[in-house]
């Protein structure tokens, strides 16, 4: 059976794109693509990936195939990274052929989110509540943090569906939770305002970007590491500007904060 290198190039590029779009590290993208290209019959393969795109060249004999793909949208769906990992292993073990692996990858691409939106919202809410408890909040404030965390998740989900720029939607979500907590504090002054706000914005915290950035730096992918570091810092700044602008306005109209 003749394997066309163009097919192998398509296969590895799709695999790399899926990993990168769903929150995998850069070295994982490069390593998986090289492994899959070699398993698919290429003699040599070279991949250069950064969070915004992938360049790859594979050759066999005298034929060289070079492809570039631009990554526009990045999210986090670790389940998809895991699936691509499995497909790559199965291709290396010759359980899958180039064609079947490509079909499997297309299936992964169409895979819906692992959890329905309702469960993700509830998870965000319980995460917020748990976080504010860990910071030492009372029962009532924990409850408020949970409710506002749910609100934050809901706002984020809504804005992401409308494809608003990530930094902007994070800032809006931060502003919304600050407003909601201020409103609740008007009716219930015992609310531990700061702890409730911190809990509810934790679902926006760039935990994945920090971890990926560190792991990229470890594998000497310094460009990716700095891009992700800047991303994490930018998200943190966006949260702070969202919450901060509401609090500034509140101070300006004569409110007082703890």
């Amino acid at each position, binding site marked *: 059976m003749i394997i066309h290198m163009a097919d192998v190039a398509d296969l590895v590029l799709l695999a790399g794109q899926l990993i990168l779009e769903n*929150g995998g590290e850069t070295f994982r993208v490069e390593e998986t693509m090289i492994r899959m290209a070699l398993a698919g019959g290429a003699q040599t393969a070279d991949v250069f990936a950064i969070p915004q795109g992938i360049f790859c*060249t594979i050759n066999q004999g005298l034929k*060289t195939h070079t492809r570039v793909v631009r990554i526009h949208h990045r999210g986090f769906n670790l389940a998809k990274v895991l699936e691509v990992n499995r497909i790559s292993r199965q291709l290396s073990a010759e359980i899958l052929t180039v064609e079947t692996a490509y079909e499997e990858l297309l299936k992964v691409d169409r895979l819906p989110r692992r959890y329905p939106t309702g469960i993700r919202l509830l998870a965000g809410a319980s995460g917020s509540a748990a976080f504010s408890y*860990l910071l030492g909040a009372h029962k009532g404030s924990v409850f408020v943090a949970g409710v506002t965390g749910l609100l934050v998740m809901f706002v984020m989900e809504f804005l992401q569906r409308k494809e608003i720029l990530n930094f902007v939607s994070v800032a809006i979500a931060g502003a919304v939770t600050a407003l909601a907590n201020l409103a609740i504090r008007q009716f219930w002054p015992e609310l531990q305002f700061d702890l409730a706000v911190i809990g509810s914005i934790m679902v926006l915290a760039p935990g994945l970007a920090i971890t990926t950035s560190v792991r990229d730096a470890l594998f000497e992918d310094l460009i990716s590491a700095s891009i992700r570091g800047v991303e994490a810092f930018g998200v943190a700044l966006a949260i702070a500007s969202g919450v901060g602008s509401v609090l500034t306005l509140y*101070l300006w109209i004569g409110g007082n904060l703890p």
Partner: protein
Amino acid sequence: MLTELTVAFIAALAFAVVFNVPVRYLLPGALAGTIGWLVFRSLGGTNTAIFFSSLGIGLLAEGGARMFRVPVLIIAVPGIIPLVPGAGAYSTMLALVKGNFIGALTKGTETLFAAGAIAVGIAIATVPLRLVQRGGEKHIRKTAHTRIASINPPEH
């Protein structure tokens, strides 16, 4: 203490669901988060505690990733979430809003170092397993390195 650990478990579990970790691998991440919080609290909750805690989580994640054959991120990300210095970042922002720049600088530096402690902890955690195994990931990079043999010949 026991309630606190349960809550840390719930927090890590909830964030794992938010990041779409498959059901089968929810438990390792949540357990890493719980153990990380135990270390963090028993060392007193300072930045040093954050370092040792994230070192522990990193080790668990590296070991677990090899055991279950999954990416390290699936265990590490839910694990470190409870350590993220949200309170420090909030107080920095609040100090800035109030115009207290000295306070913002103090709190901000503290927060930055807390984030740095997480980073260094995860980084150092990769060393022991790297020493034991013979660097598989580096190996494939070297063998795959391309020497361009020829440019495409003209098609006839």
